[in-house]
């Protein structure tokens, strides 16, 4: 049924349709509306037979989820940003124990400086944690991907993160086709755990593994993710059969076949990029990575094989080296001699404007880009701060100095 609703509300309705049995809720902006809506759905009886638990931290949120999933309950939680870091230990534990928990990440930056707005640093901080990581482009996909996520998680016995841009998607009101319960029940059978805590058949879960077997255990985790490269498109096909929409899979492409330049990206920014591409004359294609973990090396390589250049446009970066997605794309492109440029943009919620994109495309098609570009970087402010730091041992807080230089704060002069 078509509804004009907020992204978070859509996700809550999608999760409800998946008949979750345990939901752990802890507030953190910008995912909070999701767990709020789920709370109301459980309390009103619209989600039947479900325990909704208000926990005391994100670490507890995922830990309670680990307990309930290990005891055979279909389990959901959501987080973002600092919350993701606070639960980091449990994030690795959930995948190590092979528990098919589904977690929404309302993508947000990580501090300090504290910042509540969107980028994708939080999901990226857990990219090596052994979870399946799926990124969505719009709220229809957010709804559909959650339904697919439970199926993927339970088929692989691995946890899945559905990553959606904070505010841009979580707080955006769009028309969403919310599936009906019959369709979802047909697509998603009840959860049958591979291993479960049961007094009739006692097992010990989470034993200590030494050097004699640890490598093999880790290798199998890798192998299972690789197998997911086949499974994720299959489940998307099943989804298409029932719901008539292509919402998942590994990647999606627009005009990559005859484009000299292809922009590669993750998440909702593809909407802005496609509009900006349409507004200019260069032959530019776009590729969106929907499954970041597992990373579809071959599919990306094949989709980009005829490009003259690749521009990876990402809302995150690894301090001290550069783009995270770009590094992964370079691995896909190794040996091809196709240059891969990286553009870091939208950090901490900085708007990504069509004007800046047009300039970027103009530079890109002339190969007039640095290896790493920070889009819309205020060089004057940066230079002034660096100069101050080089001169003075005590230059005060970088963030506050920059706010002052930028005219945002009219504070006392620096020491």
């Amino acid at each position: 049924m078509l509804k004009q609703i907020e992204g978070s509300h859509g996700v809550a309705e999608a999760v409800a349709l998946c008949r979750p049995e345990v939901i752990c809720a802890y507030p953190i902006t910008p995912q909070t509306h999701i767990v709020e809506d789920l709370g109301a759905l459980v309390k009103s009886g619209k989600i039947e037979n479900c325990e909704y638990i208000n926990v005391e931290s994100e670490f507890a949120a995922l830990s309670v989820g680990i307990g309930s999933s290990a005891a055979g309950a279909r389990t959901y939680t959501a987080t973002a940003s600092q919350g993701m870091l606070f639960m980091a230990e449990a994030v690795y534990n959930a995948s190590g124990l092979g528990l098919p928990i589904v977690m929404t990440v309302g993508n947000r930056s990580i501090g300090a400086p504290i910042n509540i707005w969107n980028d994708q640093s939080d999901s990226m901080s857990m990219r090596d944690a052994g979870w399946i990581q799926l990124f969505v482009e719009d709220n229809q996909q957010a709804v559909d991907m959650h339904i697919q996520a439970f199926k993927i998680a339970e088929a692989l016995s691995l946890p899945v993160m559905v990553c959606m841009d904070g505010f841009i998607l979580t707080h955006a009101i769009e028309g969403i086709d919310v599936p009906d319960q019959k369709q979802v029940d047909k697509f998603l059978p009840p959860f049958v755990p591979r291993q479960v805590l049961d007094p009739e058949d006692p097992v010990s879960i989470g034993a200590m593994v030494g050097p004699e077997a640890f490598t093999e255990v880790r290798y199998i985790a890798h192998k299972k993710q690789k197998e997911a490269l086949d499974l994720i498109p299959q489940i998307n096909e099943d989804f298409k059969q029932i719901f008539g929409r292509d919402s998942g899979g590994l990647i999606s492409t627009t005009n990559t076949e005859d484009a000299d330049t292809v922009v590669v990206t993750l998440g909702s920014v593809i909407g802005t990029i496609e509009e900006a591409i349409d507004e200019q004359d260069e032959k530019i294609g776009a590729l969106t990575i929907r499954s970041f973990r597992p990373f579809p090396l071959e599919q990306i390589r094949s989709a980009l094989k005829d490009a003259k250049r690749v521009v990876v446009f990402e809302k995150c970066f690894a301090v001290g080296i550069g783009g995270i997605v770009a590094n992964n794309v370079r691995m896909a492109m190794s040996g091809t001699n196709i240059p891969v440029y990286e553009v870091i943009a939208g950090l901490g919620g900085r708007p990504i404007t069509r004007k800046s994109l047009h300039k970027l495309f103009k530079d890109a098609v002339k190969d007039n880009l640095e290896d790493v570009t920070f889009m819309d970087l205020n060089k004057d402010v940066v230079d002034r701060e660096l100069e101050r730091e080089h001169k003075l041992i005590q230059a005060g807080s970088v963030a506050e100095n920059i706010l002052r230089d930028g005219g945002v704060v009219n504070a006392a002069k620096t020491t």
Partner: protein
Amino acid sequence: MAHQQVKFYQTGTLTVGNRLLDAENRTVQGTMDRSNSLDSGHRACQGCGEALGARYAIDTAMRATDNKLIACNATGCLEVFTTPYPETSWTIPWIHSLFGNAAAIGTGVAAAMKVKGREDVRVIAQGGDGGTTDIGFGCLSGMFERNDDVLYICYDNQGYMNTGVQRSSATPGGARTATTMPVGPEPGADFDKGKNVPLIAMAHEIPYVATASIDRLHDLEAKVKKAMSIRGARYIQIFVPCPLGWGSAPAQTVNLARLAVESGIYPLFEGENGEITSTTKIRRKVPVEDYLKPQRRFAHVLKNPAQLSAVQEIADRNIRKFGLLEE
């Protein structure tokens, strides 16, 4: 035939033989059909108090729940010595996740049992004092305030023994640990630090809190049995001497547990909904020296009159506070 009133100290050891008692008062541990939940073959040190405590508590809980029990274990000695992959000493469903989240895992398992309509299956979370009073404290307090249907058992050996005997917030004043060495003018652990988690648990007004000691099996088993007869969040802290960490002879483990209680160092009590409802009286009071002497971690305290009297003061305060002596 009327049974004679048997006092548990009649044999002089507090471990009165089952044969003197009528059937319902016999210990679970003393019966042939105990569950052996923590089975033989594990890697605990000789004289490990935690292994005894866990075995007593879990077998009792198994009896009380008709063997429908799931245990969630914090990282620590108990986890490491019972489950070296691919072996396990646990004959019950058991899960280890992390150091600081055993209580939250318990909450999750209990929630799953509820939605599955298996509320006959009961949940225990357990850990050492480090995993309980320090790193696991947030999750523990959360489980308490939500009144989740979990019995949390803390095996209190007063330090991080698994990592090589470091101080925890349960380490007593004066004790030598690897991070509170007996050097300087105030040797060992500071006297003005640490926390009393049983009392903090009571401040959450949860249905049941108790302290127990491995030297008195009847008392310990009765407390676990009572805990399992109640729904909601429950907390039992069991005093479990650690020969390795305390520098005591393995054969002294049970004796040290007894001396801790009889000196007033470790008060045994029960609390329900925030009120203390019973205390275990000291039968024959002993000076704290008797308890300290067999432990190398206190060797310097015995030579330091100020520290020694500080320890005695703690014991005396406990005796006053909890009314541990018969009037």
